[in-house]
């Protein structure tokens, strides 16, 4: 501010620059905080888009033999909804928070490769635009565009030229190819940053859990997105260069695609849930006023989850026709993941135990997360049992299960993270009243929709059907599922309204509104471009605790 004043030409107005300049600053920025916010804003935009797609599907399914959308449009909707939510909402969201928080929490001034960081954001952004350009572009059907309708996992041979003429599958493939490169580069950047940019005194054993979880998440991204990207290239070779990897009409293998997709697809679940664990691991201690219980075990459990999650992919293929050995192997590996995951839940519980829990919005979302992730984990254990999954695979039970993971787990934790770090990112406090409205509306909507959704699956309702027969006991349940959407939509609108309103009119937050313990709270809100005037030195996992309690510092016990 003062620099700008002294440098300004006398008589010129320095406070309101032209919009173009501001825009240019954002487009050309290499600052990890701005890129983080760009990722998050981008994710929020597509959250609304994909949410609208889901709402249209729910209207179609509100009663049997409804004709709100045509079968093909319904298939396009679930393809776009799934692809968008995973690749252009969940991924950018976790990358956005990691980008913003990791350098701040490890006391660095930026990511290791700031330009690469900007490059990967714009690749990801471009991927989402390609996918949605299919709504209007290409030489597809007149007026209907060339929106892909192959499902978000795009099983072969539906994507072969025979079954998918035109360019709809190409939009899908290319968008994932491009954003896949963005994801891999971001992961490389995150790993390099965490390994080499930590401030003095911050050994790996003293890193905040969020940094640890982001590190493992980034490692998984490299392992998982690689095969997906390779598969996209193979699919393009099939479609344009006469290859036959997945072209079953010419002897190719449909099962090969499944392996490629799920060896990406399952670690991907952990790519998304580890950051959610990270948010909870930061928020729960602060709002319970206690140190994280069992930090070394939390780190070990995270690494174990990372490794095990690479050996479970074929539980997505229990109905594909596997040997007995295959069924047993993937059953036991999948169930094994419940152990480190269970340890995490118990550690959060132990952190709250004996604390003084105060229920601001971030903590409310984390408590809901604990219950919902517990349920999601338990249905996950059920689905790990291959024989049980012979009945439930591809049914609404699975749909309910993974929405429980992604919404009940990841999104709830992310909402908590939004409220927790909003004051840091904007320098303004959000409205607690609106946040509580958001919480309760969304909580009710979530449970009305997704608790109910398990049942039609157990009553034989497969996923991805544009309509269904009456008399199968699914009618009322589907009606209830759709009603829940209204509450969820109201919750999300309240949330967005809160973000915007608080940005414009919120009271100043101060640098440490939560009386928290990690480094990001030691700098101003929002932090300056260089983050820290002097690079901090830490002696324990909770440097600000040490500062606030010189009589009882953490480093005496760790």
């Amino acid at each position, binding site marked *: 501010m003062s620099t700008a004043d002294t440098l300004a030409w006398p008589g010129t107005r320095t406070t309101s620059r032209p919009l173009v300049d501001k825009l240019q600053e954002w487009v050309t920025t290499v600052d990890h905080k701005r890129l983080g916010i760009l990722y998050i804003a981008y994710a929020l935009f597509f959250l609304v888009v994909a949410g609208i797609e889901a709402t249209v599907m729910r209207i179609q399914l509100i009663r049997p033999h409804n004709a709100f959308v045509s079968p093909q449009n319904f298939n396009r909707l679930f393809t776009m909804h799934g692809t968008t939510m995973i690749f252009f909402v969940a991924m950018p969201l976790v990358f956005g928070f990691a980008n913003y928080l990791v350098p701040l929490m490890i006391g660095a001034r930026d990511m290791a490769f700031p330009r690469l960081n900007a490059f990967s954001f714009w690749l990801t952004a471009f991927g989402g635009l390609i996918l949605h350009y299919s709504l209007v572009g290409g030489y597809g059907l007149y007026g209907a565009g060339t929106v892909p309708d192959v499902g978000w996992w795009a*099983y072969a041979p539906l994507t072969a030229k025979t079954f998918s003429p035109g360019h709809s599958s190409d939009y899908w493939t290319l968008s994932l190819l491009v954003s896949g490169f963005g994801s891999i580069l971001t992961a490389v950047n995150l790993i390099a940053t965490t390994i080499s940019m930590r401030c003095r005194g911050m050994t790996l054993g003293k890193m905040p859990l969020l940094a640890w979880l982001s590190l493992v998440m980034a490692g998984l991204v490299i392992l998982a997105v690689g095969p997906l990207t390779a598969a996209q290239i193979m699919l393009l070779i099939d479609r344009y260069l006469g290859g036959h990897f997945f072209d079953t009409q010419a002897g190719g293998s449909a099962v090969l695609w499944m392996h490629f997709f799920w060896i990406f697809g399952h670690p991907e679940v952990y790519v998304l849930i580890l950051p959610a664990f990270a948010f909870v691991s930061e928020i729960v201690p602060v709002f319970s006023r206690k140190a994280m219980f069992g930090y070394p075990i939390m780190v070990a459990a995270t690494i174990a989850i990372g490794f095990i999650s690479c050996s479970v992919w074929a539980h997505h293929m229990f109905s594909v026709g596997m040997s007995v050995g295959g069924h047993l192997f993937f059953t036991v590996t999948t169930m094994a993941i*419940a152990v480190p995951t269970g340890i995490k839940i118990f550690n959060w519980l132990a952190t709250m135990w004996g604390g003084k829990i105060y229920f601001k919005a971030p903590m409310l979302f984390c408590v809901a997360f604990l219950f919902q992730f517990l349920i999601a984990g338990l249905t996950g254990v*059920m689905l790990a049992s*291959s024989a049980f999954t012979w009945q439930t695979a591809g049914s609404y039970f699975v749909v309910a299960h993974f929405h429980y993971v992604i919404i009940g787990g990841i999104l709830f934790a992310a909402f908590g993270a939004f409220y927790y770090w909003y004051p840091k990112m904007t320098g303004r406090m959000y409205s607690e009243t609106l946040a509580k409205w958001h919480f309760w509306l969304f909580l009710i909507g979530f449970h009305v929709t997704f608790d109910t959704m398990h049942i039609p699956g157990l009553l034989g309702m497969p996923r991805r059907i544009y309509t269904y027969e009456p008399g199968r006991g699914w009618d009322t349940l589907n009606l209830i599922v759709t009603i829940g959407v209204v509450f969820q939509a109201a919750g999300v609108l309240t949330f967005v309204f809160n973000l915007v309103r608080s940005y414009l009119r919120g009271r100043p937050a101060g640098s440490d509104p939560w009386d928290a313990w990690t480094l990001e709270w030691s700098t101003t809100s929002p932090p300056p471009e260089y983050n820290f005037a002097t690079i901090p030195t830490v002696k324990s996992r909770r440097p600000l605790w040490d500062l606030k309690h010189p009589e009882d510092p953490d480093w005496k016990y760790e």
Partner: protein
Amino acid sequence: MSIGAVLGQSASPLSPTSIFAPASTPAQTIFDLSMMVIALVVAIFVIVGGLIAYSVVKFRKRRNDDGREPAQVYGSQQVELAWTIIPVITVLVLFLATARAVLAVQGASKPKDAVEVTVVGHQFWWEYQYPGKKVVTANELHVPVGEKTFLKLLSADTDHSFWVPRLGGKTDLVPNHPNQMWIEPRETGLFLGQCAQYCGTQHGMMLLRIYVDSRTDFDRWLKEQATLARADDAFAEGRKIFEQTACINCHAVAGTAANGRFGPDLTHLMSRETLGAGVVRNTPENLRRWIRRPDDFKPGSLMPPMGLTEQQLDAVTTYLASLR
């Protein structure tokens, strides 16, 4: 016993496709396992969920709080060890139970006298062949009660999945990847299901109908199905139109020039209760509408409208309606 049992009792009259109303050996095996799995996870939920709820209530910040930080606890190896070992044991129990069910269903050997059916999934209908019996039919499968029927699962185009919840778990039909499953129905009647692996535009209306007959009914049905189509001069006009248009490129009528295999076999069309893989009842009126414009019932179906005149439609419908 837990939620599952409650669902099981209330679900069977409620839904003809409930996994809690098993009527065949593999479905029963899976049902028994499911009950055990559900009981176990409900118990875990009650315990862990109860602990979370307790700690949230008990350790909430009180109004008369003194503002001091609570005692800081950093961890405890004994406690950590306990909540590692207990889940390991639980998982082991679940795994063994699953292994038993997997072996019972998938490890079962095929008896020599088992009924064999080859199921071919097509976009968006089912073809059933009875090898050695000269029977090919579509969309409505007949099997005998109380006997093991082994289904060989093939696909003519994309992935599909055969799922009749009351008879057994699902198995996919994957091109170039032949699969097998078996059922052993305990009671006669009609069992419903549908394709459970996304296969294209009309995946949603690729319905399954399994008729479990008594052995005598089944034998009679097989015998009828193995006969050639009736040749009756009364329907010669319709037959001529049928054989001289593109119909026969896709459809077969045994004993005539029509030998297409892309669409359902029509030799005994009128012995089936539904049209279009279960999408509508098989009446002459619906049949006529179907031939005129399949999209009326099933938009995205691969059968094109044939562009017949009203008279031709009448004649073809009359001919097809004679194929019993």
